């Protein structure tokens, strides 16, 4: 993935800093590369690579117990991995902020991505997570700001979904 401006990563990074988020947990995705690179280069932001996305929910809960704000970044295919974990912030009414880059939507080159891609919003909603889906790169920052306020202001679980049309599609040579 090139490092050219995607129209949202820089703004989201600015909001991460502004919100005092100092911990990023992630199973990476191509669409998150630019943002994760910015976070990795910042000496005040710690990026934790996970073995499964669910760990990010636990790390985020523990960090909140200790006074640190965190963000879980994942590809939409990881949504299925975190259902068990989402019971924790729901039970505790504690913040759970997520940024999800979508696969399995229009333009997807890999049909294996469709089942999870189609289920993402309903899975999140079933677990009480509010979804804000940005279908244009200009919407990402405003949704992210709203999500930060809901998570850390109201103790909610919130996922900002970035639609595949914003990220671009992996075409698999088609």
């Amino acid at each position, binding site marked *: 993935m090139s490092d050219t401006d995607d129209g949202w990563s820089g703004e989201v990074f600015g909001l991460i800093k502004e919100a005092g988020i100092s*911990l990023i947990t992630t199973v990476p995705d191509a669409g998150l590369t630019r943002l994760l690179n910015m976070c990795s280069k910042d000496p005040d932001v*710690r990026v*934790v*690579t*996970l*073995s*499964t996305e*669910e*760990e*990010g*929910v*636990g*790390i*985020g*809960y*523990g*960090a*909140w*117990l*200790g*006074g*640190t704000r*965190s963000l879980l970044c994942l590809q939409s295919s990881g949504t299925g991995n975190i259902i*068990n*974990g989402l*019971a*924790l912030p729901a*039970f*505790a*009414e*504690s913040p759970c902020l997520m940024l999800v880059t979508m696969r399995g939507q229009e333009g997807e080159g890999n049909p294996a991505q469709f089942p999870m891609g189609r289920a993402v919003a309903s899975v999140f909603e079933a677990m009480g997570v509010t979804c804000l889906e940005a279908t244009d790169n200009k919407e990402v920052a405003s949704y992210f700001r709203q999500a930060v306020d809901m998570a850390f202001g109201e*103790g909610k679980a919130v996922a900002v979904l970035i639609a595949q049309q914003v990220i671009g599609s992996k075409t698999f040579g088609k």
Partner: protein
Amino acid sequence: MEMLNRREVLAQILENRGNALIVPGLGTANYDLFAVSSRDENAYMWNAMGLTVPTGLGLAIAQPDRRVLVVTGDGEMMMGIGSLSVVAAQAPKNLSILVVDNEMFEETGAQTGLSATCVDIAQIALGSGIQKTMTVNNGNEVARLAEFLLEEEGPVLAVAKVGPSADKPVYPTMDGPGIVRTFRAAVLGATNA
């Protein structure tokens, strides 16, 4: 050989708890901690099986000057076993993990666990990159275990092989938001909770 009494082992470890923050896994670890060291600095877990170590890791990152101790069972640990590699990669000096290994799912009817036969959790920890591990089978080793968990530079993981619970469960609060409020007030001060 007489099997270790899990609640007595935990009580002995926590005789010199100091200001350690403790995250007990759901089930008997939760009840034992409540029985032997009921404090505001206990982050009782009631769900999200497999996430006790990640919760301890997040806490250890947020509170680098406090010892953070995860106490959990073998079944709970197995469900989140990949998190040991995340702990090793982050290498928090203040994080200790105690796996209270009864080799069964006692909470659900004492069904045989994976560690009863082929799985060695301390070996998995070593292979995950946690370089300091300890396995304890008898009472003579518990004093050293306490020192290992509370004094040794982390990350460390110990397995205590124990018998079935000899004591009745006692239950901490099930008020999820209350657990968070109480814990944060104790650690961060009332105004930040």
